[in-house]
């Protein structure tokens, strides 16, 4: 009895997602601890420790100001690690993609499955942070319930950026540049730890280009239960900014796998 037709498109995307999910769940405890532990450490050391000596920011108690930043950065790191080192290892060392492309999975589904998994992790990591923050009473419901959706979106954006970077990196050590030169700076200067208004005007403009700035603004509005119609602009910026990188990353990676492979 032979399979008479290939699985549907979405089924193929989910098959890629399923593989990643299966690998992730194999080491659930070491994999699932960081999203709980890391925000906890930041909250205790910076939020409550340093925050005690700080004035209110944007009308919020410092630890309340910091909380949504932790939520935004959690999905940044999870998506970036997944699509830089993770993608590179699957591509070059484990040959997982070569393995996938020998099945009915095509590159399109491979790419989308990868992103879907990134988004899923962003979603789940945001829930983990939300639980920690709720434990400390730092978020206001009901809007805070929407934060995992922003976490999903943010992870997709950084997944797209990460895959773009991976598509042009041929030596795994070069990711250090991306981390030190981009991820770490935006971690500090995207309105996570202090309001952007503190920055010189030029840097404020630069910061406004960075996707994480907009994610933090969205998260902060949701955790403090302040909805405003302007939020759509930030959402659109996130989507708009990632589109060209999605195009380039998709094209480069596909060429690398199918066009120029030996």
């Amino acid at each position, binding site marked *: 009895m*032979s*399979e008479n037709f*290939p699985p549907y498109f979405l089924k193929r995307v989910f*098959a890629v997602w399923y593989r990643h999910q*299966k690998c992730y769940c194999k080491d659930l405890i070491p994999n699932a601890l960081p999203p709980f532990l890391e925000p906890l450490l930041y909250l205790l050391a910076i939020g409550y420790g340093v925050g005690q000596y700080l004035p209110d920011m944007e009308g919020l108690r410092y630890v309340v100001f910091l909380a949504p930043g932790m939520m935004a950065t959690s999905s940044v790191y999870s998506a970036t690690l997944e699509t830089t080192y993770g993608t590179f290892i699957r591509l070059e060392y484990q*040959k*997982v993609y070569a393995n996938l492309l020998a099945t009915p999975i*095509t590159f399109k589904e491979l790419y989308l499955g990868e992103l879907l998994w990134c988004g899923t992790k962003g979603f789940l990591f945001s829930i983990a942070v939300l639980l920690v923050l709720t434990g400390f009473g730092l978020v206001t419901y009901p809007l805070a319930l929407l934060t995992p959706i922003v976490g999903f979106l943010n992870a997709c954006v950084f997944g797209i950026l990460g895959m773009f970077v991976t598509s042009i990196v041929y030596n795994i050590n070069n990711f250090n540049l991306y981390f030190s030169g981009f991820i770490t700076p935006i971690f500090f200067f995207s309105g996570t730890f202090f309001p952007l208004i503190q920055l010189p005007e030029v840097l404020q403009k630069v910061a406004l280009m960075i996707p994480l700035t907009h994610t933090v603004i969205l998260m902060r509005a949701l955790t403090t239960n302040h909805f405003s119609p302007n939020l759509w602009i930030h959402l659109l910026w996130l989507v708009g900014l990632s589109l060209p990188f999605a195009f380039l990353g998709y094209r480069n990676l596909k060429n690398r*796998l199918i066009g120029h*492979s030996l």
Partner: protein
Amino acid sequence: MLESQPVIVAKNLRKRYQHIIAVDGVSFDVHAGEFFGLLGPNGAGKTTIMKMLYHFCKRSEGELKVLGFDPEKDISKYQLGIVPQENNLDPELSLWENLYVYCNYYGMDPKIRFDRIETLLDFFNLGNYKHRNIRELSGGIKRQLVIVRSLLNNPKLLLLDEPTTGLDPAARHLIWNKLRELKKSGITLLLTTHYMEEAAHLCDRLLIMDTGRILIEGKPRELVNEHFEKFVLEIEQDFPASVEIRKENDGSHFFYYSNNEFILRSLLEKSANTNYKATGASILRQPTLEDLFLKLTGKNFS
């Protein structure tokens, strides 16, 4: 698809890279139920052709139909089984999980997955390894597992890229037997190898290629018969050629070809009676595909 239509039709395939032409105008057909071989030294372009067949490599030129479809345009991969050169098993998953996740790529009904996996593991006698990690498995087991994996979807066409490279003789013979059984079940097989013995054992028809081009195509036994006399004596000692004996030299050995076994045997005996000290073995044997391969690729004979 009609039964009479070839399973693979390749016309004038070309693949250019920046500095080299890996495949340079290769055409061939593979018919249903056939065991077809792509032979050649390393770098001949065998793997590139293999990858074109399942669109893991874009072709620069040429027409290709696999099971009636262009692999670059249609999703026909669900009817193929692929054994790549590298054992790209998922190292993060166990043997069983590897197979289960693979079934998922084919969208197989979860109800039939278990049966299918069990049946194939039994076929290869791998039942005992079910819950092992990939890291713990030997090269031979891993290779068999990759073949099991390629059969999960009941493919019509099985593509095998150097299935036994690096395996010990026992594992190699085991895989050969399994492949023969698969052929009996009606599946079409395409194999690349640089083991001529393997091709001679398995293939109904084959082509030998070098530097991206086809050198020769035909049935293994016929090809050897067309190019060589019935017997060959491989020996270090230099004897004169004669009407009945053709002589070749590869730099260290002389090869004496003849249809008359008796003449060659007498040469062998003569050499045993002289004081000549042979450092290597002298062999009287039938010419093989390997002789043909070496002759055609011109690597050894002066």
